[in-house]
Structure formats: C-alpha cells, structure tokens
C-alpha cells in the first residue's frame, strides 16, 4: 500500500471517529436545545409494575425522582393514603410496602436522579401532603405558564396532569420540545 492511500485511510478513520464521538456527546434526542453540557434530565421511567398499576390507576404514575424520600414516606403512610389529596387510595400492606420501598430507593437525591434539594418541599405546610407541583424545581420550570393554559384550560385543568401537556411524561421525558398544550399547541419561549 502506498503512503497516500494509507494516509487517506487514516484520515477517513479519524473523521469517522470524530463523527461518532460527536453523536455520542450530542444528547439523547438531538433536540435543538440539547447538546453537550445540557443539564436537562430525563427522569428514570417508572420500573415497578405494582407502582405503575396501583398508582397509575387514577393519574400518571409520577416518576419517583420527582420527590425526595421523606416526601414519599409521608404520602405512603396508611392514614395519608386513605385521604390522598381528596381521594381514598388505601392499599393492602403488601403492595403498600413494596411501593414505598420502590419510591424510597428511586427518590430525588438517589443515584441517577436530580438532587433532593431541587425537589425539596417546605415543611411549613403543616399537615398538607407534599406536592410535586410545589417543589422548587417544578415552580421554577412552570412559573411562566399562564393560568389560562392550565387551570383555565378544559383540556388540562391542573398542573398535576403532567401528561396533558408533556406528551412524553409516561416515559419520563419532560423535554420542553415535546410539550403540546391542548388548544394552544407547542410551547414557545
């Protein structure tokens, strides 16, 4: 093989490697906001069948990474489940313990999730149960969303209905690019 051919092959391999590295570093879904250094986190998908079945029966099975351990523990207390944000979500001991353990193990602050401080809930709420929609991270991310698009929107109704606007919510994808607000379309800011 002559030098030119060898050099061209080496150059080709180098460019291919750079391209592959670029793809690897470019972020999971190549969205226009994504890229190397983007800290937008996709939350780990719900990976416990009992949790998905029991807690997804009435609402989106919120990813455990959305609240810190202490908050989940308060919610999973048997008395709290009987008065679960205005509903009765009582569970048998077996499922309740299994779900509580799953939530605790995958809560905010645990490995792979956003830090617990991001989802801290104030302890000044008295006896009221902690809400994902009242965490620091959540309020910071949604403070620009007008009421008329949520509470005043028949297609949404409440910030608690993540999957009404976040079309990838069930898979843990809350990327802004996948937001489609009923009656309003994509979120532009």
């Amino acid at each position: 093989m002559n030098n030119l051919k060898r050099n061209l092959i080496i150059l080709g391999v180098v460019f291919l490697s750079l391209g592959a590295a670029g793809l690897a570093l470019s972020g999971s879904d190549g969205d226009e906001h994504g890229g190397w250094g983007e800290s937008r986190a996709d939350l780990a998908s719900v990976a416990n069948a009992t949790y998905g079945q029991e807690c997804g029966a009435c609402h989106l099975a919120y990813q455990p990474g959305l609240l810190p351990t202490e908050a989940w523990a308060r919610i999973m207390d048997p008395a709290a489940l009987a008065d679960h944000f205005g509903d009765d979500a009582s569970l048998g001991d077996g499922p309740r313990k299994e779900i509580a353990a799953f939530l605790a193990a995958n809560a905010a602050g645990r490995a792979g999730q956003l830090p617990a401080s991001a989802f801290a809930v104030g302890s000044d709420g008295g006896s009221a149960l902690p809400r994902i929609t009242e965490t620091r991270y959540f309020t910071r991310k949604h403070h620009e969303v007008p009421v008329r698009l949520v509470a005043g929107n028949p297609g949404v109704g409440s910030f608690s209905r993540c999957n009404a606007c976040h079309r990838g919510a069930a898979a843990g994808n809350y990327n802004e690019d996948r937001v489609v607000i009923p009656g309003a379309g994509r979120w532009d800011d």
Partner: protein
Amino acid sequence: MMKPGVALALACALGLGLPSGPRAAALEPGAAGWVREYPQPDGSPARSCATCHGRDLTLPGRQVNTGKAIEPLAPSVVPQRLGDPEKVEKWLQRNCRWTLGRTCTTQEKADFIGFIRSQ
C-alpha cells in the same frame, strides 16, 4: 280519585316488587344505589358511583378529580371486569368509603356487583 292511603300502599308495594305491579317499574337495589348521591363532610360536591363510572356502564367513566378515563365497568364491554375478587374488594373498600363515607355492607356489595354484572 284514589284515596291517599291506597296510593301510598300501591307505591310501597311497587317499591317492594310485590306482584301488584310490574317488577321492572321498581329499580333493583344495586341500580338505585348506583345513582344515589351522598353529601360529603368536607364540603366537596355530593357524589355517587355514577359520578366517576357514569350511569351507563358500557361507556367509559372519568375520575372526577384527576380526569383520567376509566374503562367501562360493564363485563359485556370489558370481559375482565369482576374477574379478580381481590381487585373488586380493593375498589369496593376504597370507593364505598370515599363515596358513602363508610364501608359497604355485604348486602350492598352484592347489590353493586349484581348491578355491574348485569350491564
């Protein structure tokens, strides 16, 4: 014109389903209980089984607080309905407490199950 006493007796007889009138004119206990509205102590609107599940069990329902769609309860539409006794008991326990404000009696549970099964 019928005397008031006779009218009352006739109404009671119909209600009891005695052969003095067509039994179909009186609602079965399960069907009647299904739509009975229960005022709530915390001030939220009165609710019945139909509030979430609807009156026509062949149609989807809607969780009144979260808005989530509930598959039709009628076994004629969703054959798995009533097939898992533990699941039935779990939901009767929760929903009786949440709607009636107390545990349903065995008779009430039987009536509700009978009503669902007939849809």
